[in-house]
């Protein structure tokens, strides 16, 4: 009996929570070659969910992070030389510059999610999980209310058909 009550309680919780309505994929911008850069164009599915400036800021910051990671300069020269000299054993001990920037990116994305996107029913997935091909933004719908979600949810639902 207690188990059933717990199950009902969990279902109640689920009913009050949000459900995944749709996913928007921000594609890569290849206009400057194969360097990692994402399109800053605002997808129409997010029109009613988040301010355009916030979204563009996020994507631009991510682009800057990736540009910093892929930048060729003193740091990368040093890393290369060190790797050669140590017969690449250095990679066992030290993490590469790119990996460090990736950690920064992960932290930034989490912070953005917590502060900006989750309160708006959105979630950004780190593009590294998708092989840096897309930024995946999950759009959540308020499951509890009846049709109170904006048209974008319905639009995204219809586009997802």
């Amino acid at each position, binding site marked *: 009996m207690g188990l059933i009550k717990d199950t009902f309680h969990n279902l109640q919780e689920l009913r*009050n929570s*949000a459900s995944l309505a749709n*996913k928007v994929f921000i594609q890569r911008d290849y206009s400057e070659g194969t360097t990692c850069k994402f*399109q800053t164009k605002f997808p*129409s599915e997010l029109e*009613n969910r988040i301010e355009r400036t916030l979204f563009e800021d996020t994507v631009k910051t991510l682009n800057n992070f990736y540009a910093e990671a892929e930048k060729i300069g003193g740091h990368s020269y040093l890393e290369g030389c060190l790797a050669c000299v140590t017969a690449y054993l250095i990679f066992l001990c030290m993490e590469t510059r790119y990996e460090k920037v990736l950690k920064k990116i992960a932290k930034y994305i989490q912070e953005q999610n917590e502060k900006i996107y989750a309160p708006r029913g959105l979630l950004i997935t780190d593009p590294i999980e998708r092989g840096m*091909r897309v930024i995946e933004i999950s759009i959540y719908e308020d499951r509890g209310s009846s049709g109170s979600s904006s048209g974008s949810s319905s639009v995204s*639902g219809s586009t997802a058909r």
Partner: protein
Amino acid sequence: MPASGGESLKPSAFIPVCTAVCLLVGSTSMFFVFTCPWLAVTICPAIPPCCAVLFLFVLANFTMATFMDAGILPVAGEDEDKEDEFRAPLYKNVDVKGIQVRMKWCASCHFYRPPRCSHCSVCDRCVEDFDHHCPWVNNCIGRRNYRYFFLFLLSLTVHMIVVFTFGLIYVLHHMEDLWKLHCLVTLVVISISGLFLIPVLGLTGFHLYLVSRGRTTNEQVTGKFQGGLNPFTRGCCSNMEHLICSPISPNYTSRSYKKAVIHVRPPFLRPEIDGQMPMKIRDNGIQSLAIQDKQSSAGSVELSDIKQLKHPPPLPPKPDRGLLKSQVAAMDDVGHHTKSIIPVSIPTVPQLRPVLEAISRGSSPIPPEQLLKASEQQGNNKGPDLCSNPRESPARGNHQASVPVQAPLLPSTVSSSLQLNSLTLSSRSLNLKHSSRYASNCAAGSITTSSMLANQSSSSGNGKPSFDNLISPADPQFVAQRGAPAVSYHSHLMAHGAEGAMQRPSPHSYSPVFMGVTRQSPQPRDSTSRDPSPSLPGFLQRDSSPAYHGLLTRDLQSQSIATRDVPPPGLLMRDMTSLGFQDNLRDLYPQDMTLPMSAAARYDNFSKTIMASIQERREQEERAGKFHVNARSQALYGPDVGIYDIPSRRSLPPDNIRPAGSRGPTPPAYGSREFLMSTGILGYGMRTSPLSSSSTSSLTRGPKTSSSPLQSSSSSLQSKGRSSSPAYGPPERHNQGPPTSTSTLPRLTSTTYPTPPYTSYATAKRSSLPFSSEGKESFPLGVLK
């Protein structure tokens, strides 16, 4: 060792790498044991340490090249490609530094391969910056480990030269003791090193050339950037620098994700309306709207007879104006991404009804009785609907043709008695996009009417689902009436519309949202044709009305105009298939000869950009129709195309006959697959470009290249010479048959030949060539078959 797609590792794959390891380690160790002591004593004691360091470097690079992930891209999840599965085009064009590069759909990995990415058939994964699959290290060489492979080659060459030289010196100094153990061993060592020095030197030189040109082995072998410009090169020195010194890109597949739990809980914030409206008011010929926008009324809808408002709307002025402006922007943006955000509260219908009546009495060409009747019937209609009505009526000017269309539509919509809330403009703009897509060249009338339909439906209800039911079926149902008679037309159009039609969607127009919207175009057509929504029964019965027929005619005629704009070289050959279409047109033409005029006049009032985008959309849909079936069969062959499955199409020539639309047209599933393919045959028959033949030759070269790059480079030179004429295609393939393992050739035949014609068309994701080749006369494939 790379992941082999989850299957058991083939032992035969390890033979080359084991051989390489044995030879390398064995001969070098023998060199150190038997030759180096004498060298250290006689010539210089620094020789053995230097050789040891060099050998260590060789081993390190060899190990990294062998064990390092080449940059394998993880397979895309189902949610990413659910829109792409059967209707997506095979190719998607993207602009890289001003040069069009084609991204091919990978059927195994479920995404469009990024530029320079290719699918390795041995590893069965897509690899970033794919170079080749090297059997000597039993690994893919790609973005992450190309530098190690290159350095391995360099260091191995130097090492082999060193070993050979010093061994030769030793042997020359011990000619008298040639049969002693030391001498014998050294002889063996120098013979091995001398024997393998030649291919290794050749390979090193080849890769030095590649690096200087900024190409991968794959690109070189497939002849991608032969004649054209390579957008990925940065200059010789910069290429070297990037090769050696660029940061190592991360491993995508084996990462430990420490996912922090983020709770997404309602209620959700919504963006603020104030200060966010992009005031994009474009002059689209809607004069009255422009005038209205410039007015700065305070607190009322900016319509002509504002003073006739009995009750001022409850909203403050700014949102009102913003609402209207955003509405205008949305209408302006038909066919484009609408970026306007509208307020959530809109003046109520009762408050604006007097305005509507005034407008209908004033400048509207719509008979006041009809407008009044419509407004009365709509009952709960909200503001945007009414606002859009006067907007659309002036937009159309005095076109009577729209009136009869509206008349039947309005009551039918109302009769559905939906109770939808006044929805956001984004929804309406989506409908406008829908309608623009469907209506194509029958732009003004159908778009406005369908948008009217959408607006009315959207504004007369409360529930989202009902809105969805209405919007999606509304537009396509409207279209279905057009679509049904136009099915045969479409198929014929696909036949000739496909040729020369490179899909060149701009990357920005390739948003998934847009795709999703695009993707809806065929579906509702099918669904509504098969199972009309009950929500618009009256609407479906309207096709007998003369006005509707007029619309049909206009639509088809304008469609035909659009397609005739495309230069069809092979159209003559396809007259037979187009006869049916002509019959259809003939049947419809007599019914209405005056409507096209009004349609043209209607165009004048509509934005030129909207028309252009609509035309593009229509043409692309028609063109892509034939590839719908192709997409399916490609799914079977896609992953097996081979290592070098990138066709030899150079950096795409700027033959943008039609402006680049968005992501590939979604071919409506008209008719059966066989029917589509039969029309697709003629589409391909005439397109015998040299590129297609050279691409096939490059494809057959695929598996061979991995084992002997020297052979591949020489064969690439041969094929380049022969690639100019399609007639050389078959003999070329035959010639290359023997060198290539025959087991691979038939497989490649079945898989590669589908792809070359598509290199030119870039719309289909899957190939129908096995079926379509039957009908071809001039295409070289027929020879083989």
